[in-house]
């Protein structure tokens, strides 16, 4: 009876579709999905709005810089995350060397550090005035920067290094899962056919893991394109900073939206690539037999080399920056031992908590709605609503601010013409707008988690409750909610942490004088007060460790064949 999965739109399908739209669940589902999809639709819509001179000005002056910088960044971060992520994943799953057990989960830790935080930290460490160069100058009696060469942190190369260090866990995570899911039998078959362990990796394991690695790479690249803090701080003009500048600097919302649309078209291609790979990933297991992986023993120098190769990313991507942040935080107690800092933390907490509760509720509603009525229309609507994760925060901000400002003006004009009262801006620049922005951006995070959890509740649970006389809404409360409670919590935590780290959308949409930990970090760092920025940054990193732990637990639970 697996009819829902394969149902496509045929003539009869359309008749059924018409029948099913007119029920409460589907109507509300379509409405909410539409609401969440508005920003993305608005930005796409601006492709068709003529902006004339501004656009041609952009094309003549900065557009090629934006494109080139973004492409270089993607190429660099792509190669960096690919090499670090796949290499370390292979070492920890296939080989045994000192510390491989700890590194197995520790390699995920850099995920807790936002790219802009690591960028500030290394700038503070390696800049001309930083401790490293000062020590070198003292050591070798150099006086000015002309006396020696030192790589510039604030450069395209620096940005690539920073982002690779914190984004490689996406590739690592998926590559590791793919290596572990692969049946050892396949590798053993390769060995019996005369291939060495390395050849087996090269010709069997790696091609089998390719879809997963591609998916991880796509995630890392989406984050790269989303990044605003790092590139802004390093003064590298990319699409994201370009949109920010066109919007706030030039005051050209339409042109900003068009830049956003360009970026989104590019990302759509990336997402489709990822979907394509994931579609293949479904079929890549040819045997269901799992056996514990017999790890390849690395001794002596080779073991030491493997340890170093896996330890360096953890050290550079998490331990060193976290230690530096901790040191600075201790040095600057006046920054966080005051009410203002805790006010910021409270702001961040309120935003993150309300956004995550909202995101989980909406995700639950949408995924249960599709479960009740899996029509083509509903599934498409929900997919459109969860597109936001692929869209950079700046683009979402533009897509929200434009319609909200328009609506505010309409309401204001109407109120003035009828009652002679100016209502001003009701929606724009409110907390509600910011939370809505987070919902748009992070809905897919909660949706994927909730949907996966609901998928594990067998459909006969629904049917059992219904035939026992309980209507759908109550079934959700009495049956599904208690069963998937844990996953709802996970979904909430994931959104919470993403909101805590979020920078560009918050920067653009926040109410006047409303500051969060992330914004504070950004502002202080932009003022070169890197040490002062450390306490807020450290708080974000600490919260960011929670999902790393959750992910590790989830992987440990879900995996056969691993010790």
């Amino acid at each position: 009876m697996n009819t829902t999965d394969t149902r496509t739109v045929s003539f009869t399908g359309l008749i059924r579709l018409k029948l099913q739209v007119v029920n409460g669940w589907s109507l509300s589902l379509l409405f909410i999905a539409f609401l969440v999809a508005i920003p993305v639709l608005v930005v796409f819509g601006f492709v068709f709005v003529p902006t004339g001179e501004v656009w041609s000005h952009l094309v003549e002056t900065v557009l090629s810089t934006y494109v080139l910088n973004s492409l270089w960044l993607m190429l660099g971060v792509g190669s960096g995350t690919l090499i670090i992520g796949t290499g370390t994943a292979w070492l920890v799953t296939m080989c045994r060397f000192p510390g491989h057990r700890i590194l197995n989960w520790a390699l995920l830790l850099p995920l807790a550090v936002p790219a802009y935080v690591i960028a500030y930290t290394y700038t503070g460490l390696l800049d001309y005035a930083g401790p490293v160069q000062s020590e070198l100058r003292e050591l070798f009696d150099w006086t000015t920067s002309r006396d020696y060469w030192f790589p510039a942190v604030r450069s395209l190369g620096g940005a690539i290094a920073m982002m690779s260090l914190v984004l490689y866990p996406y590739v690592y995570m998926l590559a590791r899962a793919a290596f572990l899911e692969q049946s050892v039998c396949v590798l053993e078959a390769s060995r019996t056919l005369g291939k060495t362990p390395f050849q087996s990796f090269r010709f069997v394991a790696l091609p089998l893991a390719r879809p997963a690695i591609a998916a991880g790479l796509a995630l890392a690249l989406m984050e790269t394109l989303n990044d605003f803090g790092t590139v802004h701080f390093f003064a590298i003009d990319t699409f994201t900073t370009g949109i920010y500048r066109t919007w706030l600097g030039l005051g050209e919302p339409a042109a900003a939206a068009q830049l956003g649309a360009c970026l989104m078209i590019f990302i759509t291609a990336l997402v489709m690539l990822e979907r394509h790979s994931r579609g293949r990933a479904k079929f890549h297991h040819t045997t269901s037999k799992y056996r514990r992986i017999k790890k390849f023993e690395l001794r002596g120098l080779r073991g030491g080399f493997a340890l170093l190769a896996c330890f360096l990313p953890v050290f550079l991507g998490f331990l060193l920056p976290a230690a530096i942040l901790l040191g600075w935080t201790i040095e600057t107690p006046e920054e966080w031992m005051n009410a203002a800092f805790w006010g910021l933390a409270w702001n961040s907490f309120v935003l993150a908590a309300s956004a995550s509760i909202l995101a989980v509720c909406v995700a639950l509603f949408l995924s249960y709605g599709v479960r009740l009525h899996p029509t083509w229309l509903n599934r498409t609507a929900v997919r459109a609503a969860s597109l936001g994760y692929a869209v950079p925060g700046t683009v979402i901000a533009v897509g929200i601010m434009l319609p909200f400002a328009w609506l505010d003006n309409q309401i204001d004009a109407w109120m003035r013409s009828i009652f002679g009262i100016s209502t001003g801006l009701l929606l724009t620049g409110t907390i509600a707008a910011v939370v809505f922005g987070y919902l748009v951006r992070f809905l897919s995070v909660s949706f994927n988690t909730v949907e996966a959890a609901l998928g594990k509740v067998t459909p006969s649970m629904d049917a059992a409750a219904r035939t026992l006389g309980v209507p759908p809404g109550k079934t959700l409360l009495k049956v599904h909610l208690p069963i998937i409670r844990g996953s709802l919590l996970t979904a909430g935590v994931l959104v919470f942490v993403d909101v805590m780290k979020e920078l560009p959308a918050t920067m653009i949409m926040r109410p006047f004088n409303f500051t969060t930990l992330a914004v504070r970090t950004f502002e202080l760092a932009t003022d070169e007060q890197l040490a002062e920025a450390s306490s807020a940054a450290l708080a974000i990193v600490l919260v960011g460790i929670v999902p790393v732990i959750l992910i590790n637990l989830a992987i440990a639970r879900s995996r056969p064949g691993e010790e």
Partner: protein
Amino acid sequence: MGLKLSSVSHHFDGHLAVDDFNLSVGHGELVCLLGPSGCGKTTSLRLAAGLEDLQQGTISIGGRMVADGVSSLPPESRDIGFLFQDFALFPHLTIADNVAFGLDKMADAEKKARVLEVLSQVGMETRGDSFPHMLSGGQQQRVALARALANRPNLVLLDEPFSGLDSALRSQVRDQTLHLLKKSGVSTLMVTHDPEEAMFMADKIALMREGRIVQFGPPADLYCRPVEEFVATFFGEVNDFESEVGSDGHIATPFGGLESAGLTIGTKVKVLIRPEALILSSDDSNNEVEVMASRLLGRSSLIHLKGGEGGHFHSRMPSNFLPKEGEKLGVKLDLTQTFVFPAK
């Protein structure tokens, strides 16, 4: 009338799953929907429950119209009990809470008494505080049955209720289920793909193929008077071969002539003979066959025979009957287990 489906048709994606389907389950009657996988039997059951939206036809339960292709009562308003293949016990609720799940309208004391009553009917009254995962498969099945019966439904629907159990347990649980359903007097529609199970449980069997009922009646009718080849073959292995009505009005077989049953001379026919209808003995020399191999299968023996022009037949004889390879034996044909249909 417990359940009545009239002119029901249902399609998925242009594929007709149920085709102009008519079925009645009398009050207190147990009817089995039997058929190969994909024949539409589960769809019919889910339509009756309201778990699929009815597209065409009408369905009434206990004399009340529940769906007519335009409007339809949701499953929660149909007053039915459904027993699922995977039992679908709620993992977060105790056994007692599972059984009480649909009893919202009862007062607490009444609810408690009813839960205890149905649980003791299935012999599970001591496990009310356990959780589903603590029970064995057979126990889960009994709890699921108790839950389905708790609210005294008008109709009970069973979807392959024994297929999740291992074979040793299955016959025992099947027996208990049959007696409990009969005792409670509820009308029941059950889906199964196992003909032996259907014959064990059913007052009447509806054998389905490609969304239609091929034959409907008491089990003995389907077994002994199949209306077409499909029915005869579905209930067990048969020896089949083609022949035709000879000029003497008889149908020639390696085991003697058969009555033509009104078919005209020259008609091509298909002859179906159940293995147990080929009765072997050493004294009958009329129709001789040669033994190719013989194996003891437990309760019966299977003898492979060479007969006619290169024909290969199976005979099933009671208990330990193991003639030697190459031995010549006489055959007597049991005509009640021999069927003739015009060839297609």
